[in-house]
């Protein structure tokens, strides 16, 4: 009897607590993601100045030095270049490409999606069918096709990556704006004399901020991956300038003899990509004021 009485409130308590725990954990991961990203950004910005090696400095005496077993902390490659210095410099390139491609693709995708969603009609149809057409190409082929035509540089790779990543954002925004356009508050804004641009940017898009931010953070992760793909396939950032992708490509040959050459750039990519994804999740919750009803 008393066992049952004691068990009952506990049973009732449990789902609420686990929900709170899940919410807590979700935000913890987002905080962790933000910290990792901050460390990566600061590390790549200032790190190269703090270590004694230059990323291009060749040290033939210490070729293929294993991590933690010599002067190079994370080891060295086939030319004796310091892996840590190269990772940090590569991070600059990869993160720059990731952020700028995200910014470009998000802005472009939002503009296309908002225009198509708000005006609809033939304009919306033409824009969205164009989006569908671009989406039909497998990203990697589109990327390689574009990359084959342009001189590889940080700027051109950013543009190429952005050109293959804006469609998702456009679709998300189009759907949101089309649904929000017919809501009463959009009509109310029109009644109060707001212009189309005002309504789209001040009334509708703030309501779509959560999916846009999620799409944007996922886009950073994607852009980093895409840059790694093209660099890995040799069309991206050209050696000797390091990027996480071309470091992996370089490591292929030595995978069995010097696995650290692949593991560290791989880890850096994984860390950056997952951190951005966690951050995206956290931002989605944080940016939606409606969630505080719960």
């Amino acid at each position, binding site marked *: 009897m008393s066992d049952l009485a004691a068990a009952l409130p506990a049973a009732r308590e449990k789902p609420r607590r686990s929900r709170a725990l899940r919410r807590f954990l979700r935000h913890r991961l987002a905080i962790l993601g933000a910290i990792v990203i901050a460390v990566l950004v600061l590390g790549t910005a200032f790190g190269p100045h703090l270590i004694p090696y230059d990323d291009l400095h060749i040290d033939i005496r210490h070729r293929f030095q294993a991590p933690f077993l010599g002067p190079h902390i994370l080891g060295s490659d086939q030319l004796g270049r310091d892996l840590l210095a190269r990772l940090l410099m590569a991070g600059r390139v990869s993160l720059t490409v990731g952020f700028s491609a995200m910014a470009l693709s998000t802005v472009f995708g939002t503009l296309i999606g908002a225009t198509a969603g708000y005006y609809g*009609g033939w304009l919306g149809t033409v824009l969205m069918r164009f989006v569908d057409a671009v989406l039909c190409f497998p990203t990697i082929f589109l990327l390689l096709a574009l990359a084959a035509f342009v001189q590889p540089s940080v700027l051109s790779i950013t543009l190429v990556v952005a050109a293959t990543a804006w469609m998702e954002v456009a679709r998300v925004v189009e759907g949101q704006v089309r649904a929000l356009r017919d*809501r*009463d*508050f959009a*009509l*109310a*804004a*029109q*009644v*109060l*004399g*707001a*212009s189309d641009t*005002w309504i789209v940017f*001040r*009334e509708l898009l*703030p*309501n779509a*901020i959560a999916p846009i931010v999620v799409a944007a953070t996922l886009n950073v992760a994607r852009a980093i991956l895409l840059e790694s793909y093209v660099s890995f396939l040799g069309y991206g950032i050209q050696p000797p300038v390091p990027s996480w992708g071309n470091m992996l490509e370089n490591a292929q040959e030595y995978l069995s003899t010097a696995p650290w050459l692949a593991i560290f750039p791989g880890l850096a990519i994984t860390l950056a990509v997952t951190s951005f994804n966690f951050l995206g999740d956290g931002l989605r919750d944080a940016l*939606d*004021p*409606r969630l505080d*009803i719960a």
Partner: protein
Amino acid sequence: MTALLDVHDLRVRFHSDDGVVPAVNGVSFSLEAGETVALVGESGSGKSVTSLAIMRLTPRSGCEVGGKILFRDGVERSDLLALPVEAMRAVRGNRISMIFQEPMTSLNPVKTVGEQIAEAILCHRAISRAAALDRAAELLDLVGIPEPRKRLENYPHHMSGGMRQRAMIAMALSCEPALLIADEPTTALDVTVQAQILELLKRLQERTGMAVVFITHNLGVVAEIADRVMVMYAGRIVEQAEVRDLFARPRMPYTRGLLRSVPNLVPGRGRRRFEAVPGNVPDPMHLPKGCSFHPRCQHFLPGLCDAALPALDVTEDGHLARCVRWREVASVEA
């Protein structure tokens, strides 16, 4: 002095896949400054379309609006339907404003109430953001929201339905419009809150001298607030009169039906049961020939009522009725 608003032969037609749907078929009326006119009718009678046409907010595509809507701003009179887009935008929210039925959804859920009211002001007035927020607090105080400063920071979901409707009214009145169109503003609210909102609108009207077009299907609300009533049926005005006159001596059989369909609130004392108007609103694409109401009318005379559309006859002291038999109808029941 000319009328504030002069709607002349307004026609709105929608083009659908099945053909042309005439929603408003030649509505004419005028409105003086400070006057409250109720627009009454069943769903689908064209009252909301009429109000959207005045704001020029009918759908951009597949909708045709004809006629004239003369609006006086100061001494100048202009046809709203002929204004350029930019000039029309300067009228909306500034000279003519509107509130809606659903206070739950008419506020942007992701912006604070203060921001929204301030932005409504900033749309038309070149003042600083801080000044706009001060004005927003004044407006919230004016519409009877306690602790207006604190409420500015609230999101719409922090507020009750009545509170939100008050906030909507504050927004609509932020630029002191000369005309307020209220499209069933109390329908979604509790009866007690309804009364408060009506009281508030009356008080604000006395204070600002604005004219109000009040769209409703609730005759109780009409009796409470209106000076003059226009009854709409199938996209036309079928009767128009001073409010007392209409309730005392309805001339058009449809208006009689509407008045009889109001439930009697005193149980057991009602000699007359409340009756629904028989039949349904006609399909606007296939309006009956002659008087649109004849298939539902108990005074229907074949050969007369279904022959030609009756004119809007003047009966007495400005009372208008669109019925060929209004004299007989009045005497039958008197």
